[in-house]
């Protein structure tokens, strides 16, 4: 009956809640999103190209710069891929420490997520609470490897250093603190009426649709698909750990929230098991002096806090750098779902959805 114009709203790349330099071009009918074009690449540094010109060890610190809120996970993923190429057996102690670091990293990453996600929806206090606890994890990492953000904390074949004395005790202390803090976040959000109204039924995606869209990690599990690389294709010491994979039912923003909140607890459980059962022994396996994997290619995936983090690496067997280095960034593939998720919702929901996909632009753009 009426001739109405659609409003084109350019959200980002400079916008408080696009988590970095994401740009979303929204076509709006009133405040309703008709279509969304997600534009990325503002943080592209050519890590894949760079890696083809660095030697195998130097690449570890490039991987730090991808998902910079979960650098240790990236390190583990890369080192395991190279170990797979070279068929290096990693000692058990190193595997356990890797598991601890990965799970601490997952907690730190989820802390950042819960803080920013809640902030996007307007609950500012959770942000500061979550960062308070993330600080404790960063302290642990600082003690382990000297860095707080980009750790460079792995070596091919094992670890650069053994854990400092007393570190395991501190990790257990942290676990005790964190347990109570998770309840605190949940108290502020989980049963909050406004939180429920803002997240329930927002961005619903069914399990098969999520699989088809290539979602992985919590966004996929929120839709009820029990896919977790840690369980399905165990790496590090996950095959020796007892933990559950939480799944949602509705596949909406609230379920993705619940899944991550439960992952906090499961991660703590793994950290406890690994720290208490930490075996003695060497920390580096038998690694040749010159790292030069045989010719061949392989794909190896691990479960990063964001989803399936895969490395596809081709070695030509001749040179000391990879012939092709490819990362399957979980944030990239999850962000792809944003367009589908936000159609028909309001501008305010777009912000909530970006938060619930938990993307890190450093990883999306590489």
């Amino acid at each position, binding site marked *: 009956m009426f001739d109405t114009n659609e409003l084109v709203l350019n959200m980002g790349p400079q916008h408080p809640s696009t988590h970095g330099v994401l740009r979303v071009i929204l076509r709006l009918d009133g405040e309703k999103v008709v279509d969304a074009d997600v534009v990325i690449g503002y943080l592209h540094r050519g890590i894949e190209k760079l890696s083809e010109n660095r030697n195998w060890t130097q690449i570890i610190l490039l991987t730090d710069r991808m998902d910079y809120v979960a650098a240790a996970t990236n390190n583990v993923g890369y080192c395991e891929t190279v170990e797979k190429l070279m068929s290096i057996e990693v000692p058990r102690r190193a595997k356990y420490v890797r598991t601890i670091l990965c799970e601490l990293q997952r907690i730190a990453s989820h802390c950042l997520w819960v803080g920013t996600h809640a902030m996007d929806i*307007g*609950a500012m*206090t959770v942000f500061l609470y979550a960062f308070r606890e993330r600080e404790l994890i960063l302290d642990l990492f600082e003690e382990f490897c000297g860095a707080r953000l980009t750790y460079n904390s792995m070596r091919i074949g094992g670890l650069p250093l053994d854990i400092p004395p007393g570190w395991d005790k501190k990790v257990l202390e942290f676990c005790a603190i964190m347990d109570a803090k998770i309840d605190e976040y949940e108290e*502020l959000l989980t049963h909050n009426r406004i939180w429920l*109204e803002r997240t329930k039924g927002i961005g619903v995606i069914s399990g098969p649709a999520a699989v088809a869209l290539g979602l992985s990690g919590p966004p996929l599990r929120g839709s009820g698909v029990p896919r977790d690389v840690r369980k399905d294709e165990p790496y590090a010491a996950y095959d020796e750990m007892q933990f559950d994979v939480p799944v949602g039912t509705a596949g909406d923003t609230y379920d993705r929230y619940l899944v991550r909140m439960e992952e906090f607890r499961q991660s703590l459980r793994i950290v406890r098991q690994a720290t208490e059962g930490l075996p003695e022994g060497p920390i580096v396996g038998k690694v040749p002096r010159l790292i030069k994997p045989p010719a061949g290619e392989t794909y190896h995936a691990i479960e990063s806090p964001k989803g399936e983090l895969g490395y596809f690496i081709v070695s030509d067997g001749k040179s000391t750098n990879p012939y092709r280095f490819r990362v399957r960034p979980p944030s990239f593939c999850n962000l792809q779902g944003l367009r589908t998720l936000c159609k028909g919702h*309001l501008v305010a929901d777009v912000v909530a959805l970006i938060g619930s996909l938990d993307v890190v632009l450093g990883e999306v753009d590489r």
Partner: protein
Amino acid sequence: MIDTLVIPLLKIVIVLNATLVAVTYMVLLERKVIAWAQSRLGPMRVGPYGILQPVADAIKLMIKEDITPVRADKWVFTAAPIISMVPALIVYAVIPFGPEVRLFGRQVTLYITDINVGLLFIVSVASVGVYGIILAGYASNSKYPLLASLRASAQLISYEVAVTLTLVSVIMMAGSLSMVSIVRAQESQRMWYAFAQPLAFAIFFIGGLAETNRAPFDMPEAEQELTGGFHTEYSGMRFALFFLAEYANMIVVSSVATTLFLGGWLRPFPNVAFLSFLDFVPSWTWFLLKSFFFLYVFIWIRATLPRYRYDQLMRLGWKVLIPLAIANLVVTGIVKVMLL
């Protein structure tokens, strides 16, 4: 001469200055309270415990560059912050801070004026404040402010209905539109209207949050969605005026809530005789304490709750608050008629 000109002028000067100082310190209070809620310290550098922070803020805002976007509607862009600030200050003319007191051998009322349609005056002047936000959004010639101003105007108009309806039930109780008479009515009926009209009180408070654009209804300036909303394009002192207007409005809402529902300057429980020893406390102290309580709750809510979505806010306003306010009004009317 003194009674008709000097004293009112003096009162205006005092109230205006006190308000402006209170507004700047509200900013500090908010930062402090939220900081404590978030287990941090808040401003600590300027003066002991950051007590001089508002002064520093004011200096900073005044010497900042005042940017007018090239394609903005210049006159309207300049007028908008003023339009939002002035009504917020005019309202203080009818707010009764206390009854008559003797000062320097002279009978002085602790309010600037008491007009017989005081409450209506507040509502109507406050309704003009919407223009500041709408015009800011329009004049900036930018999409985020435009969206924000549309949200703001829709929000303010809808919640005004609910708030005004609750005011009507108070007016029915008091039988007057004058702010002073409403307090006196609470005194003579020996009851705060918060207890006589709990529903109206709740609706008024929620509506007050929405009308001052405070969390959880701060859609028009939702930073995470609209990058600051209607004042996205503003800077320097013009931005500060919007900022101050918001806090001035908070104080207005708190004062009105105090006057209408918490007995204004009356001591707690005016119906309980043995508490009469509290009378030694000056009446205006009670008023300020009660207003402060509201302000504190405003800040507390901001630190705790997430933000509503725009359509949910409208739904709450139209489908919950307005019907409830009307029902409350009808019940009040029936009770009033039956008791008479």
